[in-house]
Every structure is written in C-alpha cells, then in structure tokens.
C-alpha cells in the first residue's frame, strides 16, 4: 500500500515538473510548483506510515504512526503556501508591466 503512495507521489512530482517546463502561462508554473510541493508532502507522510498504525495522540490504541514526518509536513505545507503566495504577488506586479502572463513575452532580461 505504501509503495502505491510512493508511486503516485513520484508521478505527481513529475507532472508538476512537466507543467513548469511545458506550459507558457505563469500561473501554470505556480500550479506546477504547488503540485511538486504536494507530492513531496505525500512522500514524507507515507514514509512514516506503519501498517495498522494509530494516529500519534497520546492514549495510543495500537502501534502509533511515526510522528516526526507529520511535524516536517506541517512545516513544509506552510513554507509551500508562503512561497506560492509570494509567487502570485510577483505575478500580479509583473502583469502590470507586461500586460500578459505569457512566458514568451516575459523575456525582458536577456543576454
């Protein structure tokens, strides 16, 4: 069951990376970033899973799941959110100047 979640997270990671490279819209780039971010979250959480585990709240009713990945995932989610928020802010300001979010037109700095 866990290898299944690893497979899906790797696939989603690759989909995210592909969206960043293949799409010309800036929003798609940020969406790709969000996808890659979520894939890594899935990898970390499913790495701490114990078959037949119990959530790590104190009165364990069985073999508790590894709590450390949960702490990292919490941090990673919030970091990803602040990254995406910043990226969106940049996109809004940049759209003011370029009047478009097409990557082929946002090529002012070259050479």
């Amino acid at each position, binding site marked *: 069951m866990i290898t299944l979640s690893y497979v899906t997270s790797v696939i989603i990671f690759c989909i995210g990376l592909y969206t960043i490279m293949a799409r010309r819209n800036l929003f798609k*780039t940020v969406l790709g970033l969000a996808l890659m971010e979520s894939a890594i979250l899935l990898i970390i959480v499913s*790495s701490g899973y114990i078959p037949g585990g119990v959530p790590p709240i104190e009165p364990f009713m069985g073999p508790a799941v590894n709590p450390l990945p949960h702490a990292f995932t919490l941090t*990673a989610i919030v970091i990803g959110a602040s990254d995406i928020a*910043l990226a969106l802010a940049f*996109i809004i*300001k940049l759209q003011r100047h370029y009047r478009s979010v097409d990557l082929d037109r*946002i090529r002012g*700095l070259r050479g």
Partner: protein
Amino acid sequence: MTLVLAIVVPLVAAFLIPVFHLARKTLPVSLIGIMGLISLSASMAAAYAGWFSPEVSLLGGWAPEIGIVLVADRLSSAFLLITGIGSGAALACALEKFGGGPWRFYAIFFLLLGSMNGILLTGDLFNLFVFYEIFSVAAYLLVAFSMSWQALEAGLKYLVLGTIGALFILLGTAFTFMATGILNMALLSEALVSVPRETLTAISACLVLGLTIKTGAFPVHFWLPDAHSSAQTAVSALLSGVLVKVSIYALMRVCFLFFLETNGTVFLAITVIGSLSALGGHLMALRQDDIKRLLAYSTVAQIGYILIGVGCASAAGAAAAVFHSFNHMLMKMGLFIAAGNVSDEKGTREICKLTGLWKEKPFWVLGFTVLSAAIVGIPPLNGFMSKWFIILSSAGAGTVIPALVIAAGTVISAAYYLRVLSAFVSPGESDQEDPFKSSPRKVRSKIVSLTIVGSFAMFCLALGIMAFSPFSREYFSSIGRTAVDVGAYVGLVTGR
C-alpha cells in the same frame, strides 16, 4: 549560549521594527544602526566562540539525537566573519542611500541576517532547509525591492528557480530521513554509510542540484545575472558578496559531512561544475555591455573558482575555497558599490557611456581599478594568492583542467575588466563644461560608500602581502582541516 543569540537577536530586531514603525512614521537612522551593530556583535561573538573553542549548544536542552543542535567550528566561524563584514558594509550603504524611510526593507534585511547566521550555525538538516527558506524568501524580496519591472522579473525568476532548488533539497532531506530516520547532520554522516547505492545516488543528486541552483553555478546560473544586476546597489553588493557565500557554505558542509566517504564522485561533479562556471561566467561577462551584468557574470565565474577549490575534497582545497570566498566578498562588494554609485551618478549602466569619470570621480575610479586588479589576480593583491592556492590544491588533487581553466579565466577577466577601466579613464563628452547638467544637481557625495570601497581596497592589498606569511597560511589551513575532518565534527556534536 552565544550561538543562539547570533540567530535570535537579528530576528527579534526584525520583529521589533514594525512595532517601532507603529510608534513613528519613519524610523531614525540611528535606531536601525544600533540594531545592526547589536546583531553584528552577536554574530561576531558566535564566530569568536566557534574559532577558539568549537562549541555546541543544545536547543531546548534536548540531546543531539532528540532535539536541534547548533554547532560552531572554524569553518562556520570563518563564514560568520565573511557574512558579518559583508552585511555590515551593505547595511551602512543602504542606510546612507535610503535613510530610515523604507522600514520594511530593514525588517527583511534583519530577517536575512538572522537566517544567514541560522544556516551557518545549524547542525540539523531540516533546520538547514527551514533557514534556507527564510534566507531565499528574504533574498527574493530584496531583489524585488526597487519595484522596477526588471527587478520584479528578476525576482520572479529567482523565486521560481530558488523554490525548485528548495524542493529538491527537501526531497533530498526526505530521502535521507526515510533511509536513516535521523536528521542530525553529524549522526547522519555515520548512518549514511549503510544506505543502499540507488538511494545514495538519489540523495546526492537532489542535494547537489538544490544547492548548486542556490549558489548559481553555471548550468543553473540563469537567475544570478538578472537578480544581481537589477537589484539596488547595496542589495546587489549584499547578494554577490554574502548571499552566495552562505550557499557555498551549505554546499561545503553537506558535501563534506555526507559524501566524503560514501560517494566520491560528488566532488568530481563539483569540480566539473566549477570549471564550467569559471569558463562560462568569464565568457558571458566578456560580451556584456551593462556594467552590473558584467560584474554579476564575473561572480558566476568566481563561484566556479570556489567550487573548484571545494571539489578537490582536500584540506588544502577547502582552505583555498574559504580564502577565495573571503577575498571575493571584499572585491565584489567594493566593485558593486563603486559601479552602482558611478552608474547612478551618470544615470546609465552602459559601459561605453560611463566615460570621463577619471576627472569627475577619481577616488571611485581608483578604488574600482585596485579592486578589479585584485579580482583579475594581479600579483601584489590578494586575488593572485587565492587563485594560486586554488591552482595548487587542484593540481594536488591531480586534476589539471581546472587549473588551466583558472589560468584562461585570468586572461579573459583581464580583457573585460580592462574594457571597463579604459571606458572609465577615457575623456568623456562631459569634459566640455555643460552649464545645466553639472551645477544644479550636486548629489551629496557618498562618504560612507567611498570609505567602504577604500577600506576594502586597502584590505585586499594587506591580505595580498599577508598571505605570504606562514602565520596567516596556518590560519587558513586550520579552517581547511576542520572542514574536511568529519570525525572531529561528529565527536564535537555527540560529545564522544
């Protein structure tokens, strides 16, 4: 105790600035100056503690396996010194240029300072990722601070590439955690030996890519010229001089601790990346006509030199890398401050238009000449000595091509720096007296920036001469030894 203060004091200063802003509209320059001094003295205290008696401070009182550990040994104290001097100079320039007005700039600056000290002192891999994230977000915002469309575009590209780098570092950290269950860097360096081969390739590939994107080495350097050339003067000086060095420290610390025994080809890859960056940076700088972009590409090349030093995986190599990053900080910050002031004064950044400066601003041009002679590697100055140490270590490690690349780099950098200098010295059209342009707009001369550039130039000369004395060479080789000696680091952290 002093290690935690080096991180917490700048953060508290950053949190206090909005509160002060609520009290008064524009913050007094002296207030920010005092805060700057306090946080710099905190980081210098940490550097002092780390230099003479390598120190470990357990956060929250937990043992290294359980909680987070802050470690200060000679390598991190050397880089603390670099960031301290660099950010102090950048803060002084920013204060002189902006005054107290943009208080958010200073809040982000102090956050950057705190996160830099965090990266340099942390002994925990995930904590390194978190501080790296604060460091990068603050860097994106400082790049975009001037709000011009170039700065915003450079900020966005830096953000997207930086976030992809951070994601790969997070992926590498996730893999190491899955393989070993530990996150303390010292314990990891022991546990990584038993990790299977494929996982080790995945870990090393992800970490090396993430850190290389952050340092701006050649294949993934695209954000660096845009960011460094479109940022403000003080910010681009800070970016080139200090921020790059912190990423290089992270690369050194991770590679020396994890991959020294387990995966030797990482250092070969770093040498190849270094040589590529050196050549690519110099060649691309040769074709630039915007002075700040030229200096930015020259930074890419100098990063290549440092990476060649790191790639030798030897004590001499690490010492040469640290010495060159210190020299490069001095040289590049002076160059950026001088170039920034000169181009602001003339209103343009085209090299061919920055003429007639020898008469108008002789001291700036003199400082620029000495520093560019230093960065090219002309003998009496320190650039020559650090270049020599890197060539020595790369020949010692048996690789000849990087040494030849550095020799070729000297020639190419001499070519493009001379093009800039000949433009500066050539008699500009402004010689014939233009009644309207020069008289009314008497820009108040930048005393602080001029003293900084002058003192950096003097420092370069002194270091160049001092590097001959065995006394200073002993210092730098001790840094190299501590960087490479993984056993001592692990013993220090775990107290065995």
